[in-house]
Each structure stands twice: as C-alpha cells, then as structure tokens.
C-alpha cells in the first residue's frame, strides 16, 4: 500500500505532509511521556521489530502468503504515540533507503499507514478493554477487533485522500470498493496475527504490553496461610459507579462497531470476487469483447451503486467509531483528571 510519487497531486501531498509532520511532532512529545528518556533506544528497537515482523511471512494457502502491517500491533504493545513514531520511522526509512513509497508521498503514507491505523486501532482497543471484563483474554479479543478495523480504516483514509487529490480518473466508488474490499480481507489476516501475537506477549510478559497496563493483579503474599497485599504495589484504580455512563457509551459504540463488522463480513465474498475480477481482468476483457461492448460489466449501474453505498457506509462507520471513541475518551479523561494513574489514557485526537 506504499503510495509512489505522482499518484497523489502535489498540493494534497504537501497538505498530507503537514498533517503527518504535526502528528509526528505530537507523538514525539507523547512518546516522551510514555517512555521518558528511554524513548530513543526503545522506540528505535521497536521500529526495528516492526520492520522485521513485516518481513515475516504468514502462509495463507498454497503459494500465497501475507504479512503484518504492524500499526495496530505497535499501538497495543507500546502505546499510540510510540506506535505512530515507530511506524512513521519505518516508512521514512523505507522511502529514503529502499525507495518503497515515494518521497513526496511520504506525508500521504504516514497519514494513511502510520497515523490512521495506530489511532483507530488504539481507540477501538481502549473502548473494548474498558467494556470487556478485566481479563487477559479480553485484551486478545480487543486487539483482534482493533486490528480488524484499523486496516479498512486506512483504506478509507487513502480513498479520501485519493478523492481529493488523485491524479487518475478512476471513479471514487470503484477505488473505495477495491481498496476497502481488499483491505477487509487483509484486515482479517492482520487481526488474527495481531491478536495471536499480543496474546503470546501477554502470556509471557504482560507488563510489556502497553494496552494491558492496569490488568495486573496486585502482588499478594501468603503470610501465615493468609493472603496479604504486598507493600508498595499500588492498587488498580477502582471502577466507580459514576463511570457507568461511559461504559454504556462504550458498549453502544462497540455494538455499532459489531454491526459494521458483520456488514463487512457479509460483504467479504464480494471483496473476494472483486479481487478475482481484477486478477483475471484480461480474460474477462476478451470474453466481453465478443459481445461488442468490452468491459460493460464495469458500468452495471446497480452493482456500482451498491458498491458505492458500501464504501460510503464504511466511511460513515469508521467515522462514527472514531468520533464516538474520541468522545468517550474525552469524557473519561475529564472525569479522571483529578486522580491521575499511570495507566490513564491521555489521548488527544
């Protein structure tokens, strides 16, 4: 999904560059809060990890294989700010060194693949972790959903950027369908791998998983056959009744979310069909050529309309999710400013 030079026109690339620079500046400040002066080595090593894990191939079926994009994984493992930084650095180095993704399209690539995936994944993840019971398995489940949504969200953002500044004349409906359709499939793979990886880390070193902070049980000592709290371990922030409303909002959000997931799931065969369609495009063209109206299939009114509406629904869905998520966190943050705990989220979107 690395966008090359010349794919998006110059003004929009510049605007995306400004957005990316702003977000990276915010993340630099935020990462210092997440990691203090350990930022440089730790974020660097995590970036190297993301870079390496993108090369780890996950075989899908005979011959084909996929790999991790890593935005959601980074957000959950090391926190949103560090996650944005790590993925941005990976993209920067890929652009400068490996010529993977154009230099002028760097802003577009960062906005799309570093910022969107990480922020969407983290917001969804936090909401789900709040709503689900405080268990390790819910961390895994939440990271599944977060990664599942982050990839199509990136596709939607790409489509938006393309709609504003695309240099080619392919209709937005088609781009949206192709991008979202294909990336829903990719998202499923990403979700499974991310959830399994987060699960593996949580099982061994739960303290390293940023998203699972606050899930650790306080250390208990057995003194004379009786469990006693070990001194010096801070008790996790108690959940108060006044936060019920927040929880409910989160629940509704996740229901909306689930609705869209099922929507996507039912659209899944369409995505597959679309890919097959694209892959076998010349065969298709030949077949139609005998009809005398080549590629007429692409102009079928109701199909393209349905696809367009699908894409629009996706846009609205992700938009609603992000807005609702941010709203929930804004409320949570307002409520909690009094008693700051280390696990508290200070997300400013």
């Amino acid at each position, binding site marked *: 999904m690395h966008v090359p030079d010349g794919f998006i026109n110059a003004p929009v690339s510049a605007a995306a560059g400004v957005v990316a620079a702003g977000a990276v500046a915010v993340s630099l400040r935020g990462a210092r809060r997440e990691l203090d*002066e350990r930022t440089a080595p730790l974020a660097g090593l995590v970036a190297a990890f993301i870079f390496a894990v993108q090369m780890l191939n996950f075989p899908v079926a005979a011959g084909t294989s996929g790999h991790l994009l890593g935005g959601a994984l980074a957000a959950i493992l090391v926190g949103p700010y560090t996650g944005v930084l790590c993925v941005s650095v990976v993209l920067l180095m890929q652009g400068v060194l490996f010529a993977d993704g154009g230099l002028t399209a760097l802003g577009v690539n960062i906005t799309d693949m570093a910022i969107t995936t990480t922020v969407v994944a983290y917001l969804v993840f936090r909401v789900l972790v709040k709503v689900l019971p405080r268990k390790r398995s819910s961390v895994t489940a939440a990271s599944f959903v977060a990664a599942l949504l982050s990839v199509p969200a990136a596709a939607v953002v790409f489509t938006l950027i393309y709609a504003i500044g695309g240099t080619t004349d392919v209709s937005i409906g088609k781009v949206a369908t192709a991008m979202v359709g294909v990336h829903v499939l990719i998202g499923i793979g990403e979700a499974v791998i991310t959830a399994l990886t987060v699960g593996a880390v949580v099982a061994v070193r739960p303290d390293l998983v940023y998203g699972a902070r606050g899930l650790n049980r306080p250390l208990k000592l057995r003194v004379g056959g009786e469990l006693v709290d070990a001194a010096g371990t801070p008790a996790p922030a108690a959940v108060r009744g006044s936060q019920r409303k927040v929880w409910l909002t989160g629940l509704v959000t996740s229901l909306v979310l689930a609705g869209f997931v099922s929507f996507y799931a039912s659209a899944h065969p369409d995505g597959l069909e679309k890919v097959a369609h694209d892959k076998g495009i010349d065969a298709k063209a030949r077949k139609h050529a005998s009809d005398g109206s080549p590629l007429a299939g692409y102009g079928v009114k109701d199909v393209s309309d349905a696809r367009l509406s699908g894409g629009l629904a996706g846009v609205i869905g992700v938009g609603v999710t992000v807005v609702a998520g941010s709203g929930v966190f804004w409320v949570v943050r307002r409520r909690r400013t009094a008693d700051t705990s280390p696990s508290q989220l200070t997300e400013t979107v």
Partner: protein
Amino acid sequence: MGAGHAHRLYRHGHSPVHTLPPHTKLAAVLCFVIVVVSTPREAMWAFALYAALLAAVAYAARVPAAFLLKRLLIEIPFVAFAVLMPFVAQGERVDVLGMSLSVNGLWGAWNVLAKGTLGVAASVLLASTTELRELLLGLQRLKLPPLLVQIASFMIRYGDVITDEMRRMKIARESRGFEASGVRHWGVLAKSAGALFIRSYERGERVHLAMVSRGYAGSMPVIDDVSASRAQWSYALTLPCAALVVCLLGWVL
C-alpha cells in the same frame, strides 16, 4: 560483521556524487522529486529529459545501469496497478489492439509510471551513493527533530540484529520439524513474533542502560558535524535546477 560495515544498499565509490555532503544530496533528491511530480503529464518529452538527467547523475556516480535497473524492480506492484488503470478508468475510449481503453486511464497510467519510476530511480541513486550513517546525519542537518533521527538510527543499527534474530528463530523452528504451510500454523508464527517483540524490547532496555552507564543524558553528542560549502551546494542543486527548467518548459510549451 564479516561482510564489511556498509549496508548492502550502499555501493562503495569515490565519485564526485559520493563525496558530496549528505544533506545536499537529500535536498537535491527531494527538490527533484517535487519538480517531477508537478510536471504536467502531457509533456512526455520532459520525462525523457528527467530520465536523461538521472542517467547523467548515475554516470557521474559510476553506478552501473544494471544495478540501478535491478533496484527499480521494487516498483512492480504499482506497475501492475498502472496496467489495470486504462481498463477501469472512465471517460472516452480508444481501441488499441482490439481492446477498448480509457484515454484518461492511459494518461493516468503513464503519469503514475513515469513519475513513480523517476522517484524510485532518484531514491535508489541517493541510497547507493550515500552511507546509511551519513544519510542520518544529513537528515539531522536538514532539521529533522533529533529524537526522530535517533530513533531512525537505532532502527537502522539494530534492524539487521533483529532480522537476524528472526532468522535464527526460523532455523530453530525448522530444525524441530516445523513447516508453515497454512493458516493453522499462524499460532506458532505469531508466538515467534511475540517472542521477537519481547527480545527487541528487552534489548532496547539493555541498550538504554548501556548508554546511561556511558553518560547518555537524553541527547546524542554530534561528533562529526558535516557542513557543505557553497560550491558543493550548487553542484548538488544542479540536478533539481535543471529539472525545474524542464518543468517550466513543460508548462509553457
């Protein structure tokens, strides 16, 4: 460590392009790519001139054409995309070899292919004439936030270490009879990825402690500060300036 200390992307040499300070080269490549992207796609001859300019740079840098072309292969996914474009784009159509293609789509495909290829070629030339460490210094000179440059330098420095660790885990899996052939084996691979994360993170902590014990206080000392003379700047900026002339001609003609 037995294979030299330069990255495989770098091609060692002593050409005038190699000896230019890294930040002038970075600025030149960036300006060149911006100029290329803002050229109107109808001016086909302009892109030929750009390619000629890059070829001249490659000649001056003594980068063989085969090396350059091999590295251009990274672009293939987008070539595939560009090939699709004339089929799916809208607008008036022309008949080419019995297939009806969209005129706009053809222009779009040409646009992406030409600009993308030139961009990739410019980046490849930059990476093959500039050492990684120099490139990072150059980024720092171009006022990229120092923390970002530090993160990038750690990533570059430990990228090979982490990749090697991944390779060793792969060998360990395979020597125990594991062979990933489908979705059923994702669990094992994901556990490896998790283990790799833990190892990377712990290595990061160790690296930090080692740095602290050597007096690190949040910023890296700049040992070799590179500066560029006016002559070097003007030499490096010849490329984007020539490209700018071509671009303006493209708009006027």
